[in-house]
């Protein structure tokens, strides 16, 4: 009896120990390349945090010149900053709650143990707060520090910052937990996650499209001053003072001026505590029913994609490659978390092309011809960066996507070279089509010189091979077979290394292709013939650009095949 009493008595932080110990053990584990990884990520994190701090510091400093209007804008800015984070937290807390409250593997252990429901709730709630809000905290800290330093805020401002952020993140997480509780009791947990991911992406896509199509650049024109005042008027919506983001902004603004706003601070804390209490009582009532439902296997609904089978059967591929391709495509198309990302990509492509359509270069008639051709290179560079982004999100994780099922490939009589090449072709075709369409359509909309159009179209072919080869190879060199989703793989050390190399490659290519093209354009402009030496140099520059692409492609695929062949352990 005494033993049982001892087990049941620890408070809820005891249930957080496995997470803490796991983090500690991960931090203690030393593996080859850890130092390089830590230095690389540390440097990037410092750079980003420094840039955010500097941005906040600079903007606050500039606004200080406008006295009362400056203060008003800082106050408004803080409120809108918190509103942005509030919407992010509201969505991420629902997705995180699904995982922490219903889908985590350790829940079976905890629910089978004599743990009081309320303790389990508090432990899981604390974990959800941590998972859902760490990114917000990481971003908001340098912003508040920048604002505070620029305004010479007292130390109490930073303490108020801490005391504001804690209840501010608790409110959406408590709300998210309650929504999740309701959703899981209506839908199966895994289906609910898919629905939420899709809803989130549709939401993000709509925001991107909306922001672009309302044409914010109109606000920069002198004749549109009335629109600017309208714009500020919309920021003062009657619902804003009812939101925690407004209370957080007000509390911090008062503190920034050396004062104290007990009304809004109290509103934050009492709402947070009340919401947690309500969520806890709902958890007591509905969690077990929802968890139980989440365990029940439902007959999954899915698309057979028989047309895909028939189409791929027509391709001139070996049996092995055909089956690898069919498998990769079906796994991709049946996983909502993977294909739904295409929605966002589609929105970005639309915005990209729309930008070229509305570009008003005729406003400067004397320069329009020259500017169009400069934009052609901008278009090429942008297509390169789009390619790199698409490659890191869709091509780089392709080897990792085999996951624990990689034993099937490793124990099969196929060479790992064939396997990697199959991944390469699967990635190349869509990337090449997308970037070629972007470049050709963009240049057509601009009315760029035909010579430049041809150069850009050929450059894109080379760049696609290089970037897809590099992404495939580095994806095999730095796989993350245990990752939950492809985004985790893209954000890993290998993904960041790929992005750095890809950006360098795009810049070098633009320079090598841009120089001879600009020489050609200048000669066209001056209507003078090109000398033989100039022509030789131009051809040389194009050739070096092609060589750089081939070398990047070759390096990527070679390192990937080598890494797979040297791989000591296979996940299973």
């Amino acid at each position, binding site marked *: 009896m005494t033993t049982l009493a001892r087990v049941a008595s620890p408070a809820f932080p005891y249930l957080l120990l496995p997470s803490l110990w796991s983090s500690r053990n991960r931090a203690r584990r030393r593996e080859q390349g850890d130092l390089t990884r830590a230095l690389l990520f540390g440097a990037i994190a410092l750079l980003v945090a420094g840039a955010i701090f500097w941005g906040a510091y600079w903007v606050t400093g500039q606004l200080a010149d406008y006295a009362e209007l400056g203060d008003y804008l800082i106050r408004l800015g803080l409120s809108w900053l918190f509103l942005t984070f509030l919407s992010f937290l509201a969505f991420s807390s629902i997705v995180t709650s699904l995982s922490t409250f219903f889908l985590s593997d350790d829940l079976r252990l905890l629910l089978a143990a004599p743990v009081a429901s309320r303790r389990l709730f508090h432990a899981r709630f604390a974990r959800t707060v941590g998972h859902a809000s760490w990114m917000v905290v990481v971003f908001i800290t340098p912003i508040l520090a920048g604002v505070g330093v620029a305004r010479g805020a007292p130390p109490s401002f930073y303490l108020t910052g801490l005391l504001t952020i804690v209840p501010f993140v608790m409110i959406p997480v408590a709300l998210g937990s309650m929504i999740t509780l309701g959703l899981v009791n209506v839908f199966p947990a895994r289906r609910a996650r898919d629905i939420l991911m899709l809803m989130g992406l549709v939401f993000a896509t709509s925001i991107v499209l909306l922001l672009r199509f309302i044409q914010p650049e109109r606000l920069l024109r002198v004749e549109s001053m009335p629109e600017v005042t309208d714009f500020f008027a919309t920021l003062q919506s009657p619902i804003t003072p009812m939101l925690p983001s407004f209370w957080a902004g007000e509390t911090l603004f008062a503190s920034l001026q050396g004062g104290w706003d007990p009304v809004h601070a109290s509103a934050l804390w009492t709402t947070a505590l009340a919401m947690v209490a309500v969520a806890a009582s709902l958890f007591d009532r509905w969690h077990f029913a929802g968890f139980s439902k989440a365990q029940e296997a439902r007959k999954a609904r899915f698309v057979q994609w028989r047309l895909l089978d028939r189409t791929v059967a027509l391709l001139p591929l070996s049996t*092995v490659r055909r089956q690898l391709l069919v498998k990769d495509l079906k796994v991709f198309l049946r996983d909502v978390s993977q294909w739904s990302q295409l929605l966002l990509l589609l929105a970005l492509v639309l915005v990209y092309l729309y930008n070229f359509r509305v570009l008003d270069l005729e406003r400067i008639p004397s320069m329009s011809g020259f500017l169009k051709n400069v934009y052609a290179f901008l278009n090429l560079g942008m297509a390169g960066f789009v390619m790199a982004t698409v490659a890191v999100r869709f091509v780089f994780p392709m080897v990792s996507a085999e996951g624990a099922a990689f034993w099937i490939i490793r124990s099969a009589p196929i060479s790992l070279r064939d396997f990697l090449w199959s991944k390469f072709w699967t990635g190349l075709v869509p990337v090449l089509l997308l970037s070629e369409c972007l470049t050709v359509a963009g240049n057509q909309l601009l009315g760029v010189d035909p010579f430049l159009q041809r150069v850009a179209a050929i450059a894109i072919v080379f760049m696609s091979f290089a970037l897809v080869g590099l992404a495939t190879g580095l994806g095999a060199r730095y796989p993350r077979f245990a990752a939950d989703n492809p985004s985790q793989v893209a954000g890993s050390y290998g993904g960041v290394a790929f992005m750095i190399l890809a950006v360098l490659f795009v810049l070098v290519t633009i320079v090598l292709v841009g120089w001879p093209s600009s020489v050609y354009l200048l000669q066209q402009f001056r209507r003078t013939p090109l000398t033989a030496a100039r022509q030789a140099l131009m051809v040389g520059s194009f050739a070096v650009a092609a060589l750089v692409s081939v070398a990047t492609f070759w390096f990527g695929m070679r390192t990937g095949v080598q890494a797979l062949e040297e791989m000591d352990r*296979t996940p299973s």
Partner: protein
Amino acid sequence: MIAVADLVKRYGGFTAVDGVSLDVQPGQIHGFLGPNGAGKTTTIRMIAGLLKPTSGRIAVNGHDLATAPEAAKASLGFIPDRPFIYEKLTAGEFLRFHGGLYGIEEAATGERIREMLDLFELARWRDELVESFSHGMKQRLVMAGAFLHRPRAVLVDEPMVGLDPRGARLIKDVFRKMADRGVAILMSTHTLEVAEEMCDLVSIILKGRIIASGTVDDLRRLAGAADEQLTPLFLRLTGGSGLQEIDEVL
């Protein structure tokens, strides 16, 4: 059919497999026994080509796994202890994909897939996603894949984990019939009844080394216990049962 000579696997300073040699003949079921952490799975995974040996030689159907891995793997079927497969494929698609990896033309796969699904009692689940399968069903699907390409040798790591009595009986019958048709089977297990019932030869591994090998009768003679079941024999050979200590603790 499966020839392993002086196989060694080291992880840093720890030697998981230390000079293991095995020879599994066609038509033979060879049981690979040992306590947890003895090196059974590591050995099996090296033979399957999933782990790189530190040293030693592995040959399947006369093909060296190091120099001709594809030829060696083409003769081999592998059944891991945990059946991780592509969750977003149906059972039929998984088997078609598996057949493709072994170079079986699609026209020839259809009938064979149907046979395998019937044999492993999965026919009615052919068009269902693997993610909706139970552990036992996934295990049977992996076995269907392993036998799909008519392998000459089969590696099985803990075959009975997660199977119900009917599934276990089915698997035992399938393995016996495959062996009767000349397939060499190397099977790791710590279910001693399974080894006793099914295996023609047994090797016992402890701390990475094979400490005894032969028929069950050979092992009885070795341990000087003529009538003993395999369980007490195994406990004696691998370092005692610890029953005394259990009594004290309880």
